[in-house]
């Protein structure tokens, strides 16, 4: 079945030694920075002629990002052909090198996103370890000043949110799996998508290196007017996040368009795999809220740079908080919706049982998406009047109902099924448990009276780590194990997979459940120094969190081992019915040898289980059929 589309015959050309694209990207980024920085210095000179100023660094950064993108291959792949110049660029269809250059293959792009997310996770995780080292004692130790600790918290949170949580299941598995799952042979915007994947490392590095321009104290939200009191490091926060959110926006654009227009014949909306439904819903959230927060961040940037008084004299101090959290809460569902979808993707397969109440699972996703825009002010209860608090407390507690649908579908499917407790299934169950704890502690926070006590304590830090790690990290790992045989053609070790999952679960819960207790005892967020009575517990939590760090490292080692050296996997090791399992592993360049057709529901298991996907035998058919002329949708029934 694996019919790799072979590259065209080699063009005769001089074998000139070529720079590795990533290194060339760094070089061109440096050049871009220096050129634009210097131009700004000339146009807008500062007295005393400092070389790097706020404005020059901002425009220099733009130059650096353009240089970086061109350098990693956009120059040959897009820019030259776009302007009608001859380009000898030929995209390689095999080999590891294509992962380290611009590509238009959605599977390569997906893995680039996953790699960036993993890199971001390791960096931000390491920073979390440093934070925990600091919190082992009640006074400053490894950080010289409180602002340095706050910068670390900000970098940790920013990288985790904007380049891990927003990336792993959207840019990563979205790009890789969704086109295959809907039977498409490519995505709608392959070039744009190829470019956007390279914005993620640019964004991560901008945020990571922001301390070069000075410390910043706002955390991952970039709060104004506080940010205007910070040194210039905050500029690289706003800029790095601009790159990351732009990348997420492009992913959503590409996914929503691809799902709308490139579904295989017979892939009706009613048959659409749940994970694809998750991508559509989350895509809408992204398309609505990411531009909103980008506009806010641009205002924040200008407030600092010009400076304006958007959020102080002529505006109001609360307006930034409102603008941030009106995105900030939907952000939680940008993270969680694809996770819910994945639970109900993996559970029917592992239980070999039809998905229970499929429509309700989809409705749950959609209503979570709608309600998520109505709850933002629960982050501001300490700044509001009682009359304003109540509606937000109400909607916040209401949102647990559509969330419950995801649980209901999952539990109903497992009910009396033959559940196979494989590593991905185990991780999904753990994820459901952790997210439940996150949700329940959130209900407490939604209660105004309790909120006023717990606001800004480690209770909140525990709550959102349970929701975020509980959802994206556990389910992300489940997805890696579930699709590893598909992406690499190899299998992990079931013993190590389970052993590491259980270790992770234990250390995760041992660490973060104690955050709740710390919070109840009065441990504040954003403080590197705290009252002495909290020290013994913080010390002990830190020790456990180092084991948590090791447990994560163990996962990554195992996954990389399995990817490179694991035993060969069977074609469809889980007996799944979604289309990605009806092609070779790893899938060929065009995903399927010919355009597949979907002929029945993908979630029916049991005695008279019908065949879901058909691949028309005649190869000529594929050659004759223009992909862009595919009939829209399929049979209307079902």
């Amino acid at each position: 079945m694996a019919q790799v589309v072979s590259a065209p015959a080699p063009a005769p050309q001089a074998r000139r030694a070529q720079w590795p694209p990533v290194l060339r990207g760094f070089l061109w980024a440096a050049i871009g920075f220096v050129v634009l920085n210097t131009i700004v210095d000339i146009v807008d000179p500062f007295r005393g002629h400092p070389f790097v100023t706020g404005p020059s660094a901002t425009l220099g950064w733009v130059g650096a990002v353009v240089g970086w993108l061109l350098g990693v291959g956009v120059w040959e792949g897009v820019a030259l052909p776009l302007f009608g110049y001859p380009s000898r660029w030929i995209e390689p269809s095999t080999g590891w090198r294509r992962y380290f250059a611009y590509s238009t293959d959605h599977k390569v792009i997906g893995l680039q996103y996953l790699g960036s997310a993993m890199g971001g996770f390791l960096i931000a995780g390491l920073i979390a370890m440093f934070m925990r080292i600091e919190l082992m004692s009640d006074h400053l130790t490894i950080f010289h000043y409180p602002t340095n600790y706050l910068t670390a918290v900000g970098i940790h949170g920013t990288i985790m949110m904007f380049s891990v949580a927003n990336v792993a299941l959207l840019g990563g598995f979205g790009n890789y799996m969704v086109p295959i799952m809907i039977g498409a042979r490519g995505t709608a915007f392959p070039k744009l998508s190829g470019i956007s994947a390279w914005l993620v490392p640019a964004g991560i590095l901008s945020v990571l290196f922001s301390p070069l321009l000075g410390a910043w104290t706002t955390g991952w939200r970039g709060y104004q007017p506080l940010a205007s009191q910070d040194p210039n490091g905050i500029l690289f926060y706003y800029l790095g996040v601009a790159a990351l959110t732009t990348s997420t926006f492009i992913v959503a654009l590409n996914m929503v368009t691809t799902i709308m227009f490139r579904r295989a014949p017979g892939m009706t909306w009613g048959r659409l795999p749940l994970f694809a439904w998750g991508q559509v819903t989350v895509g809408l959230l992204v398309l609505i809220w990411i531009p909103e927060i980008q506009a806010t961040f641009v205002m924040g940037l200008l407030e600092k740079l010009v400076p304006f008084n958007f959020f102080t004299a002529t505006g109001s101090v609360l307006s930034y908080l409102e603008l941030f959290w009106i995105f900030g809460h939907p952000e939680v569902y940008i993270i969680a919706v694809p996770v819910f979808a994945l639970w109900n993707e993996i559970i029917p397969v592992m239980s070999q049982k039809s998905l229970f109440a499929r429509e309700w699972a989809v409705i749950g996703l959609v209503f979570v998406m709608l309600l998520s825009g109505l709850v933002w002010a629960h982050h501001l209860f300490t700044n509001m009047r009682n009359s304003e608090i109540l509606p937000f407390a109400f909607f916040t507690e209401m949102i647990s109902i559509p969330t419950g649908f995801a649980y209901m579908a999952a539990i109903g499917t497992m009910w009396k099924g033959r559940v196979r407790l494989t590593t991905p299934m185990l991780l999904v169950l753990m994820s459901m448990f952790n997210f439940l704890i996150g949700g329940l502690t959130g209900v407490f926070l939604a209660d105004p009276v309790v909120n006023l006590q717990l606001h800004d304590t480690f209770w909140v830090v525990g709550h959102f780590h349970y929701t975020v790690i509980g959802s994206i990290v556990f389910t992300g790992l489940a997805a890696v194990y579930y699709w590893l045989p598909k992406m690499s053609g190899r299998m992990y070790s079931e013993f190590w997979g389970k052993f590491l999952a259980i270790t992770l679960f234990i250390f995760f819960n041992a660490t973060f459940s104690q955050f709740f207790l710390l919070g109840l005892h009065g441990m504040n967020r954003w403080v590197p120094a705290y009252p002495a009575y909290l020290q013994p517990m913080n010390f002990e939590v830190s020790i456990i969190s180092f084991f948590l760090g090791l447990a994560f490292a163990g996962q990554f080692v195992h996954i990389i081992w399995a990817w490179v050296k694991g035993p060969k996997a069977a074609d469809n090791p889980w007996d799944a019915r979604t289309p990605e399992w009806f092609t070779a592993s790893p899938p060929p360049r065009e995903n399927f040898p010919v355009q597949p057709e979907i002929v029945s529901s993908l979630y029916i298991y049991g005695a008279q289980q019908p065949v879901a996907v058909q691949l028309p035998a005649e190869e000529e058919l594929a050659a004759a059929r223009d992909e862009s002329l595919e009939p829209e949708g399929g049979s209307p029934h079902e």
Partner: protein
Amino acid sequence: MDNDSKETPEEVSASASPEWSRRQFLGGTVALGVVGAVALLGRSTVVDAARGIFGSPVRSGRVPLYAYDYYYVPNYMTWRVGDRMDIIFQNQSHTHWHEWTMGRHVNEQYFQAFGELSADAWRVDFWDGVPVTLSDPYKIDNFVPHDALVTYEGPRSLYNIQSGGDFSPTLKPGGSLHIAFTVPNKPGIWDFGCFVQEYVHYRTGMRGKVHILPA
């Protein structure tokens, strides 16, 4: 999928684009990582070392000193004992008040979240007993002479003279002040900095060094 490339050695020749070198890629990435780590963690060490090697020219006469958020330009100067200095101190910030203090051994108790920070930052104030002439005051927030021997040109009200803390002219955004003196016989390395907003400016890097050479 990486494995394909290893299993088929012909693949390299079959591929159309010239392959870049793996060694170059790995070596270059590691080198960049090292440069990045040094830039993040060891920047001040590198800058100090570079100054030790290359030094900086001796300044005298009219020297502009600009305050920005939160750094000075220049943040390193070399003076010589006995030279006459005319420091034109200007606050270039649009939004922030800044001061210029100079001394040794900053009283930098670690911030413990509880307790107080002392008002006089330096254990040794450079300006103790130094004759100084101030002139051209513009947008002065306040001026603390401490133990310096100060001569004021123009109406004293423009200087808003206060007591408490080290010798410190504090300028409003856009303010400036002319500080004239002869470099006293206090050779060695001296630190300067701005302690406005509870040391926050100093902590975030608003500081510099003056290296005073013997006559």
